[in-house]
């Protein structure tokens, strides 16, 4: 069943209710992920990319609500938005695993790491503690952790940042989920460690045949491991494309700006652009296209009317009046 959909998000809207008003963090997002595909969701802080990831996992804080839309998990086409908490708990970990940004805040500081991995295996497979522990050590070995038996008996604070992130990955993949969501998995790590963790992720999703949803602000990481990219701006997807064509031929002015704003080792300083202005406040987003106040191509229609996400060819959709 290659090329079949595994997850489909349709018109998803997640709002936060704050003292300042309603924050439209995810505002009508539609996309799908195919089996074995690696999709990147790229955006700046406040673009709603993490909210989107947490909405799929239904791990939103108390003041957030999924207001509208569906998240279908295939092949049964169950709607995650409408599952009860008990049913959702069986999906989390078992069918969708998640890796978080800061490994230290998501590991239990007073529990040995081996036991933390075993816990998930016991819950979902109902095996004994001894079996689960054995599996945990096997997993750590698979993640190329030297001296895995010993590491399993250590506490999180005794491990380095890269090691801790590998433990988090081990927990996330312990039940062979079909989808792995990684929210800024390497932001807290040093470059050389980051390269190692990325390599590991790439190998793992290939070996286990998982689909990956990578949430990040870093277009460099995306180029290393993903094959499809969705660019988010102010709660909306502005462009979605196959990876090679996105980098070679970005269409949305925001995507172009984003690619120019980051210094790279192959770029001269004169090539560094930048996008004027700042990301908008999502309590009061601009009318029309949300990027229009920062866009150098904006014209009258952009302020008046919001551009829909339109498919321009097989592997690309863009939300911009210039492209229509």
């Amino acid at each position, binding site marked *: 069943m290659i090329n079949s959909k595994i997850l489909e998000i349709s018109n998803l809207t997640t709002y936060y209710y704050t003292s300042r008003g309603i924050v439209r963090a995810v505002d009508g997002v539609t996309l799908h992920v195919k089996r074995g595909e690696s999709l990147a969701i790229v955006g700046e802080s406040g673009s709603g990319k993490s909210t989107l990831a947490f909405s799929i996992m239904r791990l939103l804080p108390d003041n957030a609500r999924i207001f509208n839309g569906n998240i279908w998990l295939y092949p049964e086409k169950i709607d995650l938005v409408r599952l009860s908490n008990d049913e959702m708990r069986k999906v989390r970990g078992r069918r969708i695993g998640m890796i978080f940004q800061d490994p230290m805040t998501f590991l239990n500081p007073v529990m040995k790491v081996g036991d933390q991995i075993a816990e998930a295996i016991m819950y979902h497979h109902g095996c004994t503690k001894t079996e689960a522990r054995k599996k945990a050590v096997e997993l750590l070995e698979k993640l190329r952790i030297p001296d895995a038996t010993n590491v399993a008996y250590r506490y999180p604070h005794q491990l380095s940042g890269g090691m801790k992130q590998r433990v988090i990955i081990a927990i996330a993949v312990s039940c062979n989920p079909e989808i792995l969501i990684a929210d800024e998995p390497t932001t807290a790590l040093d470059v050389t460690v980051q390269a190692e963790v990325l390599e590991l992720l790439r190998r793992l999703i290939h070996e286990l045949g998982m689909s990956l949803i990578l949430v990040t602000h870093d277009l460099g990481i995306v180029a290393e491991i993903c094959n499809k990219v969705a660019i988010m701006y102010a709660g909306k997807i502005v462009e979605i494309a196959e990876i090679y064509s996105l980098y070679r031929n970005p269409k949305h002015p925001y995507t172009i*700006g984003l690619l120019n704003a980051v210094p*790279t080792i192959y770029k001269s300083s004169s090539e560094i652009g930048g996008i004027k202005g700042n990301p908008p406040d999502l309590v009061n987003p601009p009318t029309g296209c949300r990027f229009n106040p920062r866009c150098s191509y904006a014209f009258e229609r952009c302020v008046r009317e919001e551009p829909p996400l339109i498919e321009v060819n097989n592997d690309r959709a863009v939300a911009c009046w210039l492209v229509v």
Partner: protein
Amino acid sequence: MRTYPLLRVENVKKYFPIGRALFGRSKQYVKAVDDVYFSLDVGGSLGIVGESGSGKTTLAKLVLRLLEPTSGKVYLDNIDLISLSNKEIRRLRPKMQMIFQDPMASLNPRKKIRDIIGQVFKIHTDMSDVEIRERVIDLLEKVGLTPPELFLDRYPHELSGGQRQRVCIARAIALNPKLLIADEPVSALDVSVRGQIVKLLLDIFEKYKNEIAYIVISHDIALIKSICKDALVMYLGKVVERGEVGKIIEEPLHPYSQMLISSIPVPDPEIARNRKRIPIGGEIPSLINPPKGCYFHPRCPYVMDRCREKMPPLIDVDNRLVSCYLYSE
């Protein structure tokens, strides 16, 4: 004509004692910066690259004497900064300024922008309030906060991250410093805003190139490449390679530089998936008990017997300094 460099750093070391016994002397040290030397002329620019724990920020603080070195000398304009008293060094502070990573943390949240920038003139000059206001307006314009009148009476929390960093830059250049150090100036900012700040820094450095020298500290060699001419690659408190940034990126000599550069994610899938990769082994060792010999040898793919015995000295290779036995006879 001056015959000496603007900044001269001579063999500075900073050892932090740890685990001090009651009454006794500490037995263990963290060698945060170990025997670093370089000099910088007016118009010169140096990037300090390294991962966390490499000692790059400690080095910057030593250069500005925000920390006392364990040994070594720092000369600014031929003045020995280390021997100065606190009072004397305070008088020199306007000549050396720093821009920090997190602009929110380096601006007083209870002061208006006019006072944050105006304060430096109050402390270091005898300008009148009217003159100060004029200077502040002029500075805000220089860093692109226009119209300046709109920003004078705002507080830091009313500005965006990029605007705050602009205020920090305005404050740093207020008294015409000779040496400007920027520590991770864009890493706390939104991706789309980073480009603006990089451009602003480039403009400012270009405008003052006949007066100042600057140092940029970052874990990101791509950022260094876009604003500095030379770079110094640090690993566990030691300089492993020094030279022109472009050359280091094109052909890194030290195995650590090679590993660092091949680990940088490149926002271009074609390059990213076809370039040569240096296999990465192990993790950064602890600074408390660094490995014997070359600190990099446990992770190095080219390790030889010699590397395990003695730290290689910095030697001149092709207009570059490298600390690696691969390049000595």
